[in-house]
Structures are given as structure tokens and as C-alpha cells.
């Protein structure tokens, strides 16, 4: 379902409020890790503090990029032909430490297509990482303690090449995503099915994709449910 323009106009301000709340989590975690080291007189493991500070920085970075791209005039964003697998690999690599910490296995499914797509590489990689970060945390919060699997997959469709994150636990629909945007300013959990917190990563990803003329939507991939974006394939390169 296409996301309406009037919602997009107010998105950055709404998102900032949500992000400010969500940012508290990794920062509080970093503080608590340091406090625990003090309490237990054990400073041998401060990786938690570093890891959480890095998570907070990633949240801010992703939002800053989304805001920067949203403020560009139409047509100013440099798009380039890119093998989708490259962006997928980069996003998966960025999220590997987070996934490991939360007990989530990331599987890359690049079997269907490796067509070049016309995107901004940094925006696409960041969008995939931003949404992925959110989904990993949500899966872990919903989990039963068993090993959880998250697929980063792409496939061809009549809308172009579809790439995104897929999982098996909680289903998400386009109407839930749409409602989530409406609830952005008023609810602390606009996407309760996939986010314990604000799920701001999903909305940041949507903003980044919007700058490239795309958006996030609920998608399916071999009976897996997920969030994906439809990307325009690069006809120029296909001719070559």
C-alpha cells in the first residue's frame, strides 16, 4: 500500500519524538553496564557499554541521513546502478554483531536475482540496516529463547526487484504498517507486533526509501512474512 504524502510531510518531526524515546534504551543500557562493572568490581567486560553506545550512534546516524535526504530537492539524490546483493551483504555485515548478541541468525537469500537496481547505495544499505536492527530486537523480545532466524532476501516481482527482511514468528500487514504511521506521534508502540519500543528504525528506513521513490511494505517470501521495498531495476545496465 502506498504511503500517503501528507503523512510523509510530518514524518521527520514525529519520528524525532519517537527516536528520542528509543535512544534512551541503548544509552541507559550503556550506563547500567558501567554501573554493573562498578558494583561487581569487574571491569573485564565493558563490551556491553561500548556496544550500546555504538547502537545509539547508529540510531542517530540513520535518522540524520534520512533527514538529510528528505530535505533534498527532487532529483538531487544521486542514484546509481547497484547489485542488490552488495547492499544486502553490507547491511547483514553491519548487523552481524547485534544479531549475535540477541541470538538471531541472519541468513542471506540471494538465490533469486542479482539484477542491478537504480538506488543510492548508502541510502539503501542504511535503510536495510535500520529496519533490520529494529526487527532483530523485536524478534528477540517476542522470542521463546530458541534460535531465531531472519532472512535478508530478494526476489523479482511485477513491481520490480523486491528486497527486505523476512521472519516466521509475527506476521505484519500493510494496514498495520499504515496504522503505525498514523500512531507515530501519539503511541510509544506504533507497531506493537514487531516492536517493543517505538520501531523507529522501520520508519527511518521508510524515509530513506522515500527519498529514492520507494517505500516499505508488508511482503512475503516463500511463506516467510516481512518488510521489503520494491526497487527499480536498472534498464541501462541490463542493456549492456
Amino acid at each position, binding site marked *: 500500500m502506498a504511503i500517503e504524502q501528507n503523512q510523509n510531510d510530518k514524518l521527520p518531526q514525529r519520528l524525532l519524538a519517537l527516536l528520542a524515546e528509543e535512544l*534512551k534504551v541503548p544509552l541507559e543500557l550503556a550506563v547500567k553496564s558501567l554501573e*554493573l562493572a562498578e*558494583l561487581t568490581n569487574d571491569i573485564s567486560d565493558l563490551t556491553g557499554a561500548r556496544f550500546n553506545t555504538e547502537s545509539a550512534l547508529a540510531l542517530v546516524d540513520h535518522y540524520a541521513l534520512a533527514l538529510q535526504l528528505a530535505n533534498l530537492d527532487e532529483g538531487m539524490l544521486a542514484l546509481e546502478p547497484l547489485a542488490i546483493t552488495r547492499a544486502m551483504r553490507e547491511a547483514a555485515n553491519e548487523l552481524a554483531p547485534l544479531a549475535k548478541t540477541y541470538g538471531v541468525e541472519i541468513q542471506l537469500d540471494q538465490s533469486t536475482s542479482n539484477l542491478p537496481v537504480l538506488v543510492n547505495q548508502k541510502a539503501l544499505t542504511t535503510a536495510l540496516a535500520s529496519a533490520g536492527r529494529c526487527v532483530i*530486537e*523485536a524478534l*528477540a523480545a517476542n522470542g521463546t*529463547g530458541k534460535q531465531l532466524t531472519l532472512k535478508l532476501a530478494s526476489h523479482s516481482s511485477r513491481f520490480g526487484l523486491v528486497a527486505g527482511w523476512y521472519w516466521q514468528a509475527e506476521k505484519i500487514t500493510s494496514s498495520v504498517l499504515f496504522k503505525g504511521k498514523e500512531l507515530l506521534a501519539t503511541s510509544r508502540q506504533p507497531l506493537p507486533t514487531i516492536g*517493543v519500543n517505538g520501531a523507529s528504525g522501520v520508519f527511518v528506513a521508510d524515509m530513506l526509501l522515500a527519498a529514492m521513490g520507494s517505500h516499505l511494505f508488508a511482503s512475503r517470501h516463500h511463506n516467510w512474512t516481512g518488510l521489503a521495498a520494491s526497487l527499480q531495476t536498472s534498464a541501462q545496465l541490463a542493456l549492456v
Partner: protein
Amino acid sequence: MASVILLIEPNKLFAQNTKRALVANGHTVNVATSAQAAIASADEQMPALVVLEIELAKHNGIEFLYEFRSYADWQNIPVIIYSHLPESRFKLMPKQLKLLGVDHYFDKAKTSLKELVLAVASELEDEPTSH
């Protein structure tokens, strides 16, 4: 014998930190990430105290409390809320929280682990020995 504490916390890293602080003070901690898992955990091993994050996936902490308090065996177990959601922004009145048996409401951002551990110790000292 160590007191069993049921820690309901959806964030794995937060749960690890809080658990370590409580274990260092001689408690046994069972962690549940969701309301459903918490009920199952309490059913398996009755806790002496519950530390609860309100913001959970699917069923929230208040839904958990209504369910939890509906069982006779669990009606007198002390509950400490330890949440990202500050009490000032919480829609439920203190009186209603009291009715649900909430003894303390701590904002994670403003409460150190030490304060939490002290509150847990204080609650467990006040408990009758049957727990």
C-alpha cells in the same frame, strides 16, 4: 535458600545486566521476555518477587498484572515495576497500581541498579516467611 525473582524484561541485554546485579546479591533470577512466558515461568517456579517492565511485546505489563493477580497463589507476591516509561507519563493512577499490588515504580533512566537491588532486598525482608 536464595529468593527466586521473576524478571520480566523484553530486552535481552537489559535482562542480563539486571539479572547479574540481582544474582550478585544472592538471588536466583528467572527471566521472561513476554507476559505469556512470565506466567509459564511463575507456574513452574513460584517467585518471591516480580520485577516488571511495563512495555512488552503483544500483552503489556498491566495485562500481565491482571492475569497474574487473578490466581490466588500469586496475589500477595510483591511486584516492582522497573520501566522505560516514567510513572508521570503513565495513565494508571497510583491508587490503581496499588490495587494491582505494585509496591514500587522505578523509572529505568533515573534508578540505578543499586537502588533496584536495595528495593528488592527491602521487599523480601518484609515478606512473611511462607514465601
